[in-house]
């Protein structure tokens, strides 16, 4: 990541944070009806230690969190005044405080179970995390991947079909990355070998995969669901001791094997990108291919390989739709998640950890929207579903922090 100082001071971030903080303080705090309580269930039925549900005074908590938001905004002002960048953890902390304020406000007078809310949020973010990781592996090497959607869908399709035909979910899990790999191979051939515009190829590959999977769905899966579309699902596997921790135990450590693979993938990719020779080379190729070439790195070979790795990761994420969530494939079941994954990658600033937090935030908002739909929500659910996209636009417009893609991202490297 770049540690270069921004030459011109940008006041956009502090100003935006202040505005959002003021909104949190006024709307979620001061204007909230007094005397209401927001009740959060903490324990699930199977826990060893049971806790009472937490009843918080909604207005007071809203005001406190609003003040916390404003304090963070104030801090960002002092940082910028001293010519420093606003660090990513400050933005993340601000986001968490803001979301908690919103949560307290919207649950006022009702009760929700915190573990269930978080469990659902994680479930919805798993494919986003895989997709975002795919995107950043590609872009770190300089190839824009708009085809994440297609790779997810391909993975979902093939894993479902293979699991159905072999009656083994494990075989399906092995097949999923192959589908992603196949789509990625096309992307790599067209963009890295033939230098075709990356955005165009990505868009067209999405259409191709949607067409292919829907065609096969209509022709094979839908008429013969017993043979072609009954993959079954992975069951949750509770990790012995960790799974018994209150709240986070059931959320993080009572999941399907795909989620555990995700934890490993995030960790491995983070270490590989920033601590290994491979990662240094990839980042060099993505930032300054000419220099990398001069140093003896085969630029296009690195890119080709990275696109393939990315595709395999996304394909694995696709398996989560069929083998993790629904237990069967349905037409266009990824429903634009690949694009939210792209957004998560950008919001996470091309960093695996950042991407995970962004994806979790999107998953949380999405799940909150459906939970609030049940208990009655003060905001129409469609507006909450829009939130990830709006936040991403705000981020790329530079209103919150600076998002800087790898310098050579999107440019083909043609050796002269």
């Amino acid at each position, binding site marked *: 990541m770049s540690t270069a100082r921004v030459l011109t001071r940008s006041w956009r971030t502090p100003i935006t944070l202040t505005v959002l903080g003021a909104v949190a303080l006024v709307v979620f705090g001061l204007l909230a009806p007094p005397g209401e309580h927001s009740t959060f269930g903490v324990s699930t039925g199977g826990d060893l230690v049971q806790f009472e549900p937490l009843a918080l005074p909604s207005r007071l908590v809203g005001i406190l969190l609003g003040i916390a938001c404003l304090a963070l905004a104030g801090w960002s002002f002092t940082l910028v005044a001293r010519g420093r960048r606003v660090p990513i953890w400050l933005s993340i902390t601000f986001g968490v405080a803001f979301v908690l304020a919103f949560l307290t406000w919207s649950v006022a007078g009702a009760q929700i179970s915190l573990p269930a809310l978080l469990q659902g949020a994680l479930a919805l973010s798993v494919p986003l995390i895989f997709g975002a990781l795919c995107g950043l592996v590609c872009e770190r090497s300089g190839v824009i991947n708009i085809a994440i959607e297609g790779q997810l869908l391909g993975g979902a399709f093939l894993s479902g079909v293979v699991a159905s035909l072999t009656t083994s979910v494990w075989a399906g899990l092995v097949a999923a990355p192959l589908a992603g790999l196949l789509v990625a191979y096309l992307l790599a051939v067209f963009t890295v070998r033939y230098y075709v515009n990356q955005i165009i190829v990505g868009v067209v590959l999405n259409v191709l995969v949607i067409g292919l999977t829907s065609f096969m769905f209509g*022709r094979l899966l839908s008429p013969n669901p017993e043979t072609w579309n009954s993959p079954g699902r992975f069951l949750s596997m509770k990790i012995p001791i960790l799974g018994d921790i209150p709240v986070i135990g059931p959320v993080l450590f009572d999941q399907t094997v795909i989620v555990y693979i995700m934890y490993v993938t995030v960790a491995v990719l983070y270490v590989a990108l920033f601590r290994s020779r491979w990662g240094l080379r990839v980042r060099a190729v993505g930032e300054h291919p000419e220099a990398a070439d001069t140093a003896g790195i085969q630029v296009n070979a690195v890119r080709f390989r990275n696109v393939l790795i990315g595709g395999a990761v996304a394909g694995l994420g696709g398996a989560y739709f069929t083998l993790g969530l629904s237990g069967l494939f349905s037409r266009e079941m990824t429903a634009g998640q690949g694009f939210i994954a792209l957004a998560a990658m950008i919001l996470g600033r091309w960093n695996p950890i950042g991407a995970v937090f962004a994806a979790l935030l999107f998953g949380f908002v999405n799940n909150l929207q459906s939970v609030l739909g049940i208990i009655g929500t003060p905001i129409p659910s469609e507006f909450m579903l829009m939130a990830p996209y709006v936040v991403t636009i705000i981020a790329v417009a530079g209103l919150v922090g600076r998002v800087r893609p790898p310098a050579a991202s999107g440019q083909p490297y043609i050796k002269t």
Partner: protein
Amino acid sequence: MTETREDTPPEEKGPSAGQRFWQELTTGNIMVTLLSVVLALVIGAVLVAISDPRVQDAAGYFFARPGDLFSATWSSVGDAYAALFTGSLIDVSEYTVGRALRPFGETLTNATPLIAAGLAVAIAFRAGLFNIGAEGQIILGAIFAGYAGFAFDLPIIVHVTAAVVAGIVGGAIWAGIVGVLKAKTGAHEVIVTIMLNNIAAFLLAYLLGTVAFQRPGRQDPISPFVDESAQLPRLVESTRVHAGFLLAILAAAIIWWLLSRSTLGFRLRAVGNNPNAAHTAGMSVAGTYVVVFVLAGMLAGLAGASLALGTERHLNTGISGGLGFDAITVALLGRANPWGTVAAGILFGALRAGGVTMQARTGTPIDLVLVVQALIVLFIAAPPLIRAIFRIRVRAKEPVATASKGWES
């Protein structure tokens, strides 16, 4: 996407994003286009054959009676493509001319929004910009046009004109956001348009649940029909072709004139070719981005209006149904040229219309059309590939050094 200083345009380094990409498109020869279409249809045929249970059965006893496999394949593919043809061009089994030509009417009906939205993508290409957001712009156009169509009472010609203009304005506003953000902050148009597509879809879903938009007496998200005075009139009895088709052709003519004969078009192409040179020559690059996106939004808004006032005549959540993405393939096949886009729009309109008949008559899913469409564009986008496949010798050309650029530009 990065911080920009006040006095310089966002683009400072190197040629622009869609840059010479369209040049590469326009220099490709007609042979490559034709072969791409043929190759895509052949691959489509293979898909139809291998997924057909009759063919699979015949393959099971191939060595006993090899002829069966060929006849099964032939009939499977033949039936599907015959239906595709019948459903898009002319139905010879009908006895009256009007009914026999109804399929061609369907083709033009399907082509209408594809042409308008294809132009929206094409004009952005010419300025070196990617408009992935036609989908959202179509939706906004449809919302505005539809609302104007059923919420107001106006005299006959005034109403339809007002509704179409409303749709154009709706698309222009939505795309204008992209242009302004790109000009002011450097936010990359691809990301912004993708996000706005999804926002538009949720906005439509939300609106269709409100009192102002929901059809009285219905619980599902569907709007009232637009007033008769706001409907685009049918051109031919017994077909669904409506005046929107003429508007789309008119739009193509205007865009052709704009691009090739006007000062604005010159500025637009100059910015598309080399924003630095354009900036040096005193053109406002940022201003051009705004103008291009507003123009693109107007065109996509027209597509939305033609759907809301001509084809569907009401609003529903699937009103655009991925047309905005098809529009990208249309613009690419049309090589970002207005008349090329019209031709490509009609071809893809024919595939869509024929696909419906193919699905109804032979049970071959209409999604085959998406596959064929995507393949055509993939082959066209990579001329070296198609040349390698067909071993065509082409005059030596510069490598596509300008083929693509990324987020930064």
